[in-house]
């Protein structure tokens, strides 16, 4: 749901530039939806206790941590495939390969960020990495764009 909301960023930018590249726009929208869904589920893994207390049925509470992790790795793979599809279809410029940094980035978040020592002691690091996903990705993209 959050992902759909944030995919408006892509739509807005497309409308702003009055783009005719609908394949690029569609791929980017799907990519954003999945990326933000992943982000939200990782948040849910982190906030397990709060959701349990409030009775919110999140993925990690329903599926369990391990199955949720497998699910997230699957989505992470799909996000990378969408990026590559855009590149091979010629919808994205070569600089899009910088977005593939999301593959190791989210793998790290999925595997290590929800571990007990991180959950207890690195709150601001968690928020930086989860809230600021694109702050990390933009430099890689810009590096390849130039």
């Amino acid at each position, binding site marked *: *749901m*959050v992902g*759909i*909301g*944030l995919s*408006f*960023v*892509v*739509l*807005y*930018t*497309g*409308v*702003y*530039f009055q*783009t005719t*590249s609908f394949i*690029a*726009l569609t791929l*980017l929208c799907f990519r*954003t939806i999945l990326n933000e869904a992943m982000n939200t589920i990782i948040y849910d893994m982190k*906030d397990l*206790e*709060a959701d349990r*207390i*409030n009775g919110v049925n999140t993925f990690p509470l329903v599926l369990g941590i391990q199955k949720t992790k497998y699910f997230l790795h699957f989505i992470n793979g799909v996000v990378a495939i969408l990026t590559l599809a*855009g590149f091979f279809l010629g919808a*994205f*410029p070569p*600089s*899009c390969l910088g*977005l593939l940094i999301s593959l190791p980035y989210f793998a790290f978040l999925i595997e290590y960020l929800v571990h007990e020592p991180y959950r207890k002691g690195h*709150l*601001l690091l968690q*928020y*930086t990495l989860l*809230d*600021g*996903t*694109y*702050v990390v*990705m*933009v430099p890689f*993209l*810009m590096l390849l*764009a130039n």
Partner: protein
Amino acid sequence: MMNRFLALVFSSGTIVGLSMAGLALVTNILLSEPVSLHPILVWFSITAGLYTANRLIEGDKDAAVDNVISSTVAACKPFLLVFSVSMTLLGIFLAFYERLELGLLIVLTIFYFALYTTDLKKIGFKKGGGVQRITSV
């Protein structure tokens, strides 16, 4: 002190705002257009404003588990409220100023997030309960 300041930055949704400004920039570059500041500014203001509102609304729920962000939200409510409203209005103004359809898209986004944040099921059940009481009388 530094932690308190950082907690305020994080609880204000500024980082999410920067991230979404980054997404606008990514979209801009991938559509192979010249980089424009407009979508970057609009999405920074809108997402920072909306996420601050979200943190204010969800603050009580998050406070169930003690953490520095939720306690900062509780302590700085008036400041965060002003920040949220002014950033959202700035985003709306910038979008409408550029073009009508862009402004409407932003209003649609805000409407979507408002629906998402509001617990529709709860409202539905409340209404259902009311109807039941009336019929039983």
